């Protein structure tokens, strides 16, 4: 049985390695998240907003031309069609309702690609709550449209200037803000990372993805189960949601796609399952990229949402125990997959999501297989990157 225990461990991974300053808030969440999430009124509000505001259920689409190319059966779970353009909003809707229920008055978040920042700014506008989003200074540059969106939605975007000035550092700054504002503030973490109960809480909010997949697949194929589910993994929230209802179905392969950056062993990579060792990052015992002295290494990926030196503890456990298969995809292969999907299916995916598509070129499968790819987000935010590399792609230089 794959599930988190009461202390937040998946096997040996998880827990809550946090300074005492965070304890009251995290403990309050730990004691109350399940009870609140299970209340009728909470469930009603959550599902009503997912339907009427987010636009769920998101379609499960049989990608015929892609299937023909790969000679198998590929379905796309269209999280890109959600309001704000990615799966991130499933979690922020859930957490803002929880924050309100806990009487919190102010919201903070970290963001990498800006999708989680936008999804948080959006629900804060919806609920009339002040919102501060921490974003690495490097990411503020490479994801400029999302920065403008957050500001337009009324959020304050604060640059994180320490370390690699990317997602890890934005998360550090958000945690420090929470330490400084322990009473009125809720921290909406954007991935299945952080101290318990965050990884489990985020996975549960995202689990709507596989909940829908089951009945949608049954309508399409007569079975609720695919042969494989593929998702990209930054911290692991879209993957956690896409795997959730299949975790204990061992005949469903779970494929976790990480960012190899310029190559797994190039020194510029974010392939945590290969390069990571056991340790603690952002309050969780998990796999992370670090030196032998235990200093966290600065990761690299062209895709801001995968540019993170750790993975959530559930994924560390799934990979370490062999339940999930990890695949690493380079920047170049992710770009190629993005251009290919755009032409084949008329869908421009997010750069993060493109990594999941590139996995089709390296994994093994049968022609009779049913494969679901979690299409975690759309590529509008990455247009500048896509434009910059398009000529190289056309000229065969990628």
């Amino acid at each position, binding site marked *: 049985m794959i599930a988190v225990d009461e*202390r937040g461990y998946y096997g040996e991974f998880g*827990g*809550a*390695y*946090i*300074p*005492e*300053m965070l*304890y*009251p808030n995290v403990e309050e969440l730990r004691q109350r998240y399940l009870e609140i999430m299970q209340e009728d009124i909470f469930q009603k509000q959550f599902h009503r907003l997912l339907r009427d505001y987010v636009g769920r259920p998101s379609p499960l689409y049989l990608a015929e031309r892609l299937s023909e190319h790969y000679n198998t059966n590929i379905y796309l779970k269209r999280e890109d069609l959600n309001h704000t353009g990615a799966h991130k909003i499933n979690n922020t809707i859930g957490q803002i309702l929880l924050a309100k229920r806990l009487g919190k008055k102010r919201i903070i978040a970290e963001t990498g690609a800006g999708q989680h920042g936008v999804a948080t700014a959006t629900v804060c506008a919806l609920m009339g709550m002040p919102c501060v989003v921490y974003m690495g200074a490097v990411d503020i540059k490479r994801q400029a449209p999302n920065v403008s969106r957050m500001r337009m939605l009324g959020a304050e975007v604060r640059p994180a200037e*320490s*370390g690699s000035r990317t997602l*890890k550092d934005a998360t*550090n700054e958000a*945690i*420090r803000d929470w*330490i*400084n*504002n*322990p*009473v009125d503030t809720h921290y909406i973490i954007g991935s299945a990372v952080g101290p318990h109960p965050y990884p489990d809480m985020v996975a549960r909010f995202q689990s709507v993805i596989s909940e829908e997949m089951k009945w949608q697949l049954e309508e399409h194929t007569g079975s609720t189960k695919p042969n494989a589910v593929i998702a990209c993994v930054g911290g692991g929230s879209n993957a956690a949601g896409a795997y959730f209802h299949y975790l204990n179905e061992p005949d469903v392969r779970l494929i976790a796609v990480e960012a190899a950056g310029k190559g797994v062993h190039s020194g510029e990579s974010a392939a945590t399952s290969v390069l990571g*060792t*056991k*340790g*603690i*990052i*952002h*309050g969780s015992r998990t796999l992370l990229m*670090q030196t*032998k*002295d*235990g*200093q*966290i290494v600065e990761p690299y990926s062209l895709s801001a949402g995968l540019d993170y030196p750790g993975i959530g503890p559930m994924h560390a456990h799934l990979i370490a125990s062999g339940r999930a298969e990890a695949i690493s995809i380079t920047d170049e292969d992710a770009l190629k997959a993005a251009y290919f999907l755009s032409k084949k299916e008329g869908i421009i995916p997010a750069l993060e999501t493109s990594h999941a598509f590139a996995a089709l070129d390296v994994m093994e499968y049968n022609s009779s297989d049913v494969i679901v790819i979690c299409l975690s987000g759309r590529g509008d935010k990455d247009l500048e990157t896509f434009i910059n590399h398009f000529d190289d792609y056309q000229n065969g230089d990628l």
Partner: protein
Amino acid sequence: MSRLQSLFERKKQDALNVYFTAGYPALDDTGKIIRALDNAGVDLIEVGMPYSDPLADGPTIQESGQQAIQNGMTLPLLFEQIAEAREHTDIPLVLMGYFNPVMQYGEQRFFDRCAAAGIDGLILPDLPVYEYENFYREGIEKAGLDISFLITPQTSDERIRQIDALSTGFVYMVSNSAITGAKSGISEEQIAYFERIRSMQLESPRLIGFGISSHETFQTACQYANGAIIGSAYIRALGEGQPVEEATHQFVQQILKTPIPQD
């Protein structure tokens, strides 16, 4: 009796604990700083292991840690430096650091090496009480090390009692709800918190830290606890470019405002 216990046996008031980041300003300053602090009349010293991602620390300690790592500070080197410094002093030394580097070194190996190098106690701010009790308490006790846990203005009375019972060095009272960094003064709200904790009559000595930076804030803290801890303000003093000995002497003098014993 451990060095920490005999210190608090002897000195029930005005204990001054000064923090520095090992490897800052220069890689081999550790011994010099320990000697200078000892000579200047400090009662105990908190040696900070630099870490890339110190979640509970403000910019001053973050930057000193970054510099120390760049200078080449590692745990094996730090243990060597401390063992060497220990030959010349009897002052209680407490090692403060985040848990990830401890895990990489090997937890039990770390505890044993600390003891062998002459470290007296540990502060591991992101090692939670639950994990301490279930996984590490035995090993730390076996190594003969003291341990101090933190409490904050938000810590419940029940948990304060638990932390008091588990702490063997002192209880580290975080002075306000904030990351480390020098603040200008101490508010009435903080005083109310100090009084509340004082009235709980804990078994462990209490030291107040975070935001203590001057003679005035040190004195105020000492009215409500057995002593206080200064970190960021000292790091800043060290960063001003004066030789370690002079900077330390002047800094401690400013805090204590009493003549420093000559040796």
